[in-house]
């Protein structure tokens, strides 16, 4: 059971701007109706025909009052874009909660998954249900918000373990079995593949462990002085002979500028590796992915460019846990990038994706050592 975030609700939440308001709508449900809604273990919001919250149940109310009446559900949930007008921004067009509401207006109860980022930077996955009810001659929607973040995390981890790790482990095992029936003088390349596979497996599991620790707030950084260009070259060399480089090239920009800074090499390498992998998978065939770095004031900036341009639907959901263009349950990449960079390295991740320039991810980390997780 999850109560609303403290920054999301209060006694004097202002109504969201944008859209029409039926100022005459008053939730008529009393007594038994509200008692039943209050008894629910998850936040329930009743919204009117204008999508305005007219009742919030006990779990949704942090202050015990009716202060949540008036805004839209994005305001109540503390969505980071609600301040621009819940339901009016481009992000709202791909919001699972709004999708559930739109579908429920058709008359049937619906359920959708909503990946939300709060103003405080938390990433929450909700299973949103929207159920139309008719009370006193008026149509209302009862919207439930079940926090499924833990289940979402487990689903992603399960996929990473049960698919990605097993996929590679099956390959290594198969090669080991084949080696046993291969003449000794022909085992050379098999041995090389087995070794590289075992090494990749170890790295894959270690990367997942790092992300899990980061999500729990238990990641401890190992800080030391690093050279930006040397770090970039180290990441680039990991992709030598990689499958993703068969039809694409990975290069370091000629104007990449070196510089010394203090950070965690393992975590920053993991961040850059994920961005490079995503760029290589997104880049059109025959094109080049370019890595760059250089100082910018009191920060070191790393850039990963690929000529492809992402759709608005992808870009708006890019850093949400669980979202992936690579299939259900796979999406730890950019979410982990943002988590590790911003919460642990005290840096910033940005993306610009537009024709004809392509897509550039920028990772900005401070020159000085981060002093601990942000926001914990």
């Amino acid at each position, binding site marked *: 059971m999850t109560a609303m975030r403290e920054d999301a609700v209060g006694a004097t939440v202002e109504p969201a701007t944008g859209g029409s308001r039926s100022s005459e709508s008053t939730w008529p449900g009393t007594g038994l109706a509200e008692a039943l809604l209050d008894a629910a273990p998850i936040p329930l919001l009743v919204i009117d025909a204008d999508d305005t919250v007219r009742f919030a149940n006990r779990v949704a109310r942090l202050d015990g009052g009716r202060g949540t009446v008036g805004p839209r559900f994005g305001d109540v949930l503390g969505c980071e874009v609600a301040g621009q007008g819940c339901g009016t921004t481009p992000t709202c067009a791909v919001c699972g909660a709004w999708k559930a509401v739109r579908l429920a207006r058709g008359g049937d109860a619906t359920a959708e998954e909503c990946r939300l980022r709060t103003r405080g930077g938390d990433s929450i996955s909700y299973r949103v249900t929207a159920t139309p009810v008719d009370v006193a001659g008026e149509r209302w929607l009862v919207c439930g918000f079940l926090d499924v973040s833990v289940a979402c995390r487990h689903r992603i981890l399960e996929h990473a373990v049960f698919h990605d790790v097993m996929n590679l482990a099956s*390959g290594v095992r198969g090669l080991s079995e084949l080696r046993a029936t291969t003449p000794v003088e022909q085992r050379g390349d098999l041995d090389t593949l087995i070794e590289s596979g075992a090494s990749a497996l170890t790295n894959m599991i270690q990367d997942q462990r790092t992300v899990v620790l980061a999500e729990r707030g238990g990641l401890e950084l190992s800080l030391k002085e690093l050279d930006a260009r040397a770090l970039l070259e180290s990441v680039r060399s990991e992709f030598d002979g990689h499958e993703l480089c068969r039809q694409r090239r990975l290069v370091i920009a000629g104007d990449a500028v070196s510089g010394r800074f203090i950070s965690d090499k393992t975590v920053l390498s993991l961040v850059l590796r994920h961005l490079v992998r995503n760029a290589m998978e997104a880049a059109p065939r025959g094109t080049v992915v370019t890595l760059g770095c250089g100082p910018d004031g009191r920060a070191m900036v790393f850039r990963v460019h690929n000529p492809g341009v992402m759709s608005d639907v992808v870009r708006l959901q890019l850093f949400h846990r669980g979202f992936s263009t690579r299939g259900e349950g796979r999406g730890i990449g950019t979410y982990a990038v943002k988590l590790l960079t911003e919460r642990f390295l005290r840096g910033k991740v940005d993306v610009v994706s537009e024709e004809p320039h392509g897509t550039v991810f920028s990772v900005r980390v401070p020159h000085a050592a981060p002093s601990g997780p942000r926001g914990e």
Partner: protein
Amino acid sequence: MGAIRKRVIIADDEAHIRRVFRDVIERENLEVVAEAADGEEAVEFYRRDKPDVLFMDINMPHKTGEEGLKEILAEFPEARVVMLTMVADTDTVRRCVEAGAAGYILKSLSVNELRDCVREVMGVAGSS
């Protein structure tokens, strides 16, 4: 005159898996004419080489195995495409079979089990 070997393409984004299948297939005296690392290559190589069988992973970058299967079957209705998957009980596997895949093979099988599957697919009685 020697018999013409049956021709195969392997498509999987994991190099170790491709190598396992290549060795198993070649030990059955079959010819691997190409290896693809993503769905785009799989379709391209199929058009170019028109193998007897394409073994294709379901989960690949740039174009999924399901997408590649549909594209190949639309152009080559007689194509024999066997899907490779880590898990059997998924909607994706079911859709692929319904779309016309000749079957599927679990990648977690032992080498001997993979060999038996390849023999069944290729209609070979045993290694020659």
